[in-house]
């Protein structure tokens, strides 16, 4: 993939927005029959910020994006962009560029005409349109493909053209609806970097919807984790991973193992070791509780008398992920791959908590991991 032109600076050059817009979603409610897709969603996005909506299928993230784009109308609540209420403005007049999950290029138009379409709708003359569309195609590394038709491009190229087309209108907000999900892993990683790089250079406010936590954590300034139409937590990727405030976030973002524990004051006892409980916005928990452990929260030592034994081993390059069965509980543990290579399946180990504190949540079902 051709690198993005280094000469393009924030706020200038092709596709530069007229400065990123601030976005405020105020108490949005949207129901479909008995299903509440958005349940009082409230969120503020700063100008030029990249926010990712992350959540499982049906959590309302796409509905939120479609309401912002103007394709859906909320039952109540407001969409405010740069202080202006757009709730009653239709999609055509919102000035928002959108890249869709499915390839959305117009099949009857060449690549150049696709990129110039938005400019044609804005009554720019032919010469201006061609010049700007060509510049944007150069920007996404497809300057030599302008005369081709969408069916002659690969999936990754089509999404890059769609990105150029969305940027051509100098949108106030760029909306990305799972644009990478139909692509293969290598192209996805390349395009992910390119989108992030362009977004930073153009300083354009961007909302990105995805169910892929790796995408969300690696691209966004802030990640908004959604569940059942409301926001579970919105924070920077690092905070979200290290300090999840709810059990849902701890379970959904990253990998967590649930281990039943007993509260003892402000501490819990895990594997015979006392650990402080992480303060949580969800407040105190009462009744039976589980500790939520990240794979890197636990260390192991080989010990024939140890309480756990290794049941699975997965190689991830620098690290190896082990599943250690401790009684009835499977616990995932990451070790350096050179250490992991010496460990055999069935080998007995002694687990030890190395995190400074742990998150606890009301006891739920202990799931056998499908992904180790």
């Amino acid at each position, binding site marked *: 993939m051709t690198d993005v032109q280094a000469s393009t600076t924030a706020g200038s050059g092709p596709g530069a927005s007229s400065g990123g817009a601030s976005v405020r979603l105020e108490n949005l409610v949207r129901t479909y029959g008995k299903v509440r897709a958005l349940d009082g969603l409230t969120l503020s996005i700063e100008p030029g910020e990249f926010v990712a909506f992350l959540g499982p299928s049906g959590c309302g993230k796409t509905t939120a994006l479609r309401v912002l784009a103007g394709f859906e109308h909320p039952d109540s609540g407001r969409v405010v962009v740069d202080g202006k209420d757009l709730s009653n403005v239709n999609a055509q007049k919102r000035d928002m560029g959108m890249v869709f999950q499915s390839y959305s290029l*117009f099949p009857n138009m060449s690549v150049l005409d696709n990129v110039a379409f938005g400019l044609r709708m804005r009554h720019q003359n032919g010469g201006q349109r061609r010049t700007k569309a060509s510049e944007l195609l150069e920007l996404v590394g497809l300057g030599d493909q302008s005369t081709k038709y969408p069916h002659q491009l690969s999936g990754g190229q089509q999404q890059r053209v769609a990105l150029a087309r969305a940027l051509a209108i100098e949108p106030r907000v760029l909306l990305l609806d799972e644009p990478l999900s139909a692509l293969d892993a290598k192209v996805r990683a390349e395009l992910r970097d390119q989108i992030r790089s362009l977004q930073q250079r153009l300083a354009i406010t961007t909302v990105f919807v995805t169910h892929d936590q790796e995408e969300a954590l690696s691209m966004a300034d802030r990640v908004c984790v959604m569940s059942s139409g409301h926001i579970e937590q919105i924070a920077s990727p690092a905070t979200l991973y290290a300090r999840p405030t709810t059990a849902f976030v701890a379970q959904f973002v990253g990998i967590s193992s649930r281990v039943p524990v007993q509260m003892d004051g402000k501490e819990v006892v895990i594997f015979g070791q006392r650990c402080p409980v992480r303060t949580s916005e969800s407040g105190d928990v009462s009744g039976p509780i589980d500790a939520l452990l990240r794979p890197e929260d636990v260390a192991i030592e080989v010990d024939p008398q140890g309480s756990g034994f290794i049941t699975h081993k997965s190689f991830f390059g620098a690290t190896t992920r082990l599943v250690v069965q401790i009684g009835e509980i499977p616990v995932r543990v990451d070790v350096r791959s050179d250490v992991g290579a010496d460990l055999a399946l069935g080998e007995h180990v002694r687990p030890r908590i190395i995190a400074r504190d742990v998150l606890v949540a009301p006891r739920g079902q202990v799931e056998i991991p499908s992904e180790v």
Partner: protein
Amino acid sequence: MAQVAESYYFENPEVNPQLPQRRRRRRKKFRLWRLVVLVVALAYFLAPLYAGVKFALQNDLGKFSFWAFTSLPSEQGFSGAFFLSMRLAFFTAAVELILMVPTAIFVHIRVPKLRPIMDFVTILPIVVPPIVLIVGVLGSAPLWLKSSPYLLSIFYVVLAMPFVYRSLDAGLSAIDLKTLVEASRSLGGSWIRTLWSVIMPNLRAALLSATALTLALVFGEYTMANLDGWTTMPVWIAQFQQSDAHVTLAASMALLIGTWLLLSLIVAADRSQSRRSRRKAGTP
């Protein structure tokens, strides 16, 4: 295990030398069967045409002659019937598309749940006999409408609806309509611009096929035109048959060839546009 070994032996040409020969024989047998079906089907369709063309190319004495064809334009009532059929055909096609294109698009985008109901409703004109339709309407239509040949077009629109709707439905199902419309709208395209610049060009094949089916239907419809008292081409052919069978058969053949030429022209125009697009894109 024995079954696997057996299958390996019989399916592997390296260990079973009889296999290629047997396959060739089977293929040969299959080809012959296909050829027989093709010949029978062609004979079924072409024999009446051949008989018709042969009869139309004979004079009263049974000799070869173009007389029936050359005299057609000057036959009484022919040109009137021909141009009336033409007017009705194009008017019907236009009304049909103006009504059905937005309807089909609306159903696909806004109420896709209605598609099964639309499928049922649009098949009704096939179930209801044309004679029932026209007798009912002729009894209640206002005089100004009854005195216009375009009353027929209203019926033809209903008659052609099943074919046109299905053609458009298939065309719309073949594209990601919702995403294309939303992409156009987010880029500032109005509904009209979206329809004209994005949807219609991608529905070209469906529109052409809907138009062709409508034209063919109108050029061949007899019952309604006859009951409404208008001399369209089929009515003229039926009436003139009593005067000169050679001429009416020549007219039928001319109509058939004319319709076929029209459809071929439409298809050729479509292909040439696709070729131009491909050439512009720099591919063969």
